[in-house]
């Protein structure tokens, strides 16, 4: 192993040691000091776009304000994350962001899980001294899974960067200048006509209500959902994800940075491919074929028929005339029971699964 040299610095009066090459933000987080961020996502390169992670660095008589997310911690630094100067600046930065952001939290999908809302509350920013009105609004398009509200975008660039750095699909970028700046596709094309693969990584990293899961719109806010940690049922990577549930319905799928093995990343199937769960085609009752047609039956009728038939075949032809196919759709526990059933109950080793196909 290559030994990375350590450096020493002081943050809010606390002395700490950290590996060289880490940022001030990482150093602060490592000792439990929280610095607010909007444009920062630990999976992405530092961007320093939102400016709310500003901290004060002592430099003799001329203290300077610097962004902590992209400044490397160096030996002997003295940092203050909550000085009056820092708090005042942070508040002004929030005012600037809010000058171009609608104040419609009461109807916003992101209410309760919006990072901007949290910061505005924390720093008590009720009004912005700046006068610009946010323009744009919800984009009405045929995209079935991603809803975009251009008025809510705070230009943190997380969607643009996750698309470029992690997905490497380069489907969206910044457009225009000044207050007209927005994120979008070339020539305003539909995402369908770009390199977008509908992974929804942009939705998952958006800190505000600008990009949301369209299928979950109007179904509730985050605090109303029960989040159930589970493992994706599609490919063999086994991504960790959270089913957001209200009543007896899975409303959306979310992910968290730091989970194994996917670190909060999901693909289109994992993030948006859950709607089959509530599809009207789901089988809801056992079916028994009578005269070539399926008829609904009770569990008792169906299971008794199976038990009788398997016993008959076993008695007449022997257990080796019966087989069981289990599959990857089943859990380990279910696969184990399927093979135990085949061996201990039917009395044969004719058990196989879908690995060959």
């Amino acid at each position: 192993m290559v030994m990375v040299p350590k450096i020493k610095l002081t943050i809010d009066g606390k002395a700490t040691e950290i590996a060289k090459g880490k940022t001030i933000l990482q150093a602060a987080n490592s000792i439990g000091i929280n610095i607010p961020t909007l444009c920062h996502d630990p999976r992405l390169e530092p961007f320093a776009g939102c400016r709310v992670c500003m901290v004060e660095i002592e430099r003799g008589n001329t203290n300077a304000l610097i962004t902590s997310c992209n400044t490397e911690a160096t030996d002997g630094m003295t940092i203050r994350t909550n000085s009056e100067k820092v708090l005042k600046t942070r508040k002004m930065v929030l005012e600037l962001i809010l000058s171009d952001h609608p104040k419609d939290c009461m109807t916003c999908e992101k209410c309760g899980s919006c990072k901007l809302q949290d910061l505005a509350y924390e720093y008590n920013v009720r009004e912005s001294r700046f006068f610009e009105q946010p323009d744009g609004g919800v984009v009405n398009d045929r995209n079935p899974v991603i809803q975009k509200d251009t008025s809510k975008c705070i230009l943190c660039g997380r969607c643009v960067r996750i698309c470029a750095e992690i997905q490497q699909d380069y489907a969206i970028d910044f457009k225009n200048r000044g207050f007209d700046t927005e994120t979008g596709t070339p020539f305003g094309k539909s995402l369908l006509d770009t390199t977008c693969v509908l992974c929804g990584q942009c939705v998952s990293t958006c800190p505000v209500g600008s990009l949301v899961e369209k299928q979950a719109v109007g179904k509730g806010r985050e605090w109303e959902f029960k989040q159930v940690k589970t493992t994706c049922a599609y490919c063999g990577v086994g991504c960790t994800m959270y089913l957001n549930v209200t009543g007896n319905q899975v409303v959306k799928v979310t992910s968290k940075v730091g989970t194994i093995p996917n670190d909060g990343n999901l693909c289109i199937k994992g993030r948006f491919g859950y709607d089959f769960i509530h599809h009207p085609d789901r089988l809801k009752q056992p079916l028994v074929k009578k005269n070539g047609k399926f008829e609904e039956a009770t569990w008792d009728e169906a299971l008794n028929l199976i038990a009788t038939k398997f016993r008959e075949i076993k008695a007449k032809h022997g257990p080796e005339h019966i087989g069981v196919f289990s599959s990857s759709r089943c859990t380990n526990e279910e696969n184990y029971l399927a093979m135990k059933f085949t061996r201990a109950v039917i009395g044969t080793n004719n058990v196989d699964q879908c690995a060959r196909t």
Partner: protein
Amino acid sequence: MSFGSGSMTNSISEIKDCKLIFLIGGNPTEAHPIVGLEMKKALRKGCTFVVADPRRIWFAQHAKLYLPVRPGSDNWLLNAMAHVIISEGLENKEFIKTRTEGYEEFKAFVKDITTEKASEYTGIPAEDIRQAAGLYATSEKSAIFYTLGITEHTCGTDNVRTIANLALLTGHIGKHSTGVNPIRGQNNVQGATDMGCLPDRMHGYQYLSDSAVVDKFEKAWGVKLSRTQGATSPTMFERMSKGQFKGLYVIGEDPVMSEPNQNYTINGLNNLDFLVVQDIFMSETAKYADVVLPAASFAEKDGTFTNTERRVQRVRKAINPIGNSKPDWQIICELSNLMGYKMDFPSPKEIWDEIASLAPMFAGINYARIEHNGIQWPCPDTKHPGTKFLHEGKFTRGPGKFFVLPYRAPAESADKDYPLILSTGRTLYHYNAGTMTRRSAGSTYKTNDCFVEIHQVDASELGIFDGETVKIATRRGEITARAEVSDKVKKGVIWIPMHFVESAVNKLTKDAYDNITQTAEYKVCGAKLEKII
């Protein structure tokens, strides 16, 4: 096999630190998107990619070297790479001496497998094969990744062993970010084999041929067990087609869509006296059943899945079963009780405890330990942290074994009547038989019809334009699909995804199987394409 156990030798988290990735017969950005992201991370960090595939997939476009290999000729490519490594003195002599056996025979065998000969079979320039071998052998951290493009052949096992030969030759195994990694295609396909849904072994890869194993299970389960090896699914279908098989219980599989040669599969199912299908939808297979049982989906049950890196992870119940459906484990228990064998597990947790008590490799895993993060088997006791990569220091089987494997042609390839090679696979937007994703808005928005990829030169010879519906036929059947004309797929090859029931590509594929694993040859058969007038 070559090393002694079949699974990824490295973990997903090690991918980003690879210095060279040799990707053969796999398309991670579509079939395993999150593994694809880790590889993209490696790419950003300067990892060299060597990609062998008949299709110009995403990583082929970003590779240092792209080898457009003709389907079914991987053996030539891999053996010729071994030839180059030995003839240029790039082999790891120390590793070969201390950790392998069978090297001399192997060396003598590959002596004649020159890059020029390999070039004729594979369609790859000889110089590129030489360069690929050099890059692979000399990189500090080389990892090979492969998936079904390697295994879904009549010579699938041979292919896997030929890949292993390269790792043994160079010592690129058993280290961080260095190894041989098959990526499993389906969520719990690793778990299904781990749990002993195999005709010759119990869970934890404990063979029935070992009478001590059977004795152990007879004692634990309190029942006399058959010691005769069972039949694999292809063998069961063969017996069905001859009317020598009477009852089948299918749980969560859709063989009509996923087995090769659909007519043969349907014919087999029709010959059964009694078919039970347990699924969440009326699958194509369920239509032939006598009884269909409604199962609960993954969101409606507790349990565990094991991912491709051997990590046992929790699945948690989020909602109650839809309608009158029940989780598979509960159905099996009830059926078993009815048939006179008591299975009274209150929940999947107790089932797992029985699993762990009967297989040493899972002995250290329990629900409390995997509450937050999964654990990678083997994990022999509750203090063991799990196993990140296999074969460090020594192989499961002792010394790693070189196999001498001459080329075997596919069961059927292109010929005069069927001049194109048909290969099949998966796409990003859909999953296998499409039962789930065809009912999902996002996926169907992106793709909702079957397509056939064809090279522009082949298309122009046949007078076929991009987007037109064409007929594809093999000796077993025919389907129609939309033509996607480009230079993505190699000339002489066509490629069709497997998800679309209305154009089921397995009407076309051949029921020919690997001699050892009995995996079907989905990746090569002869086909022809016709314009519909």
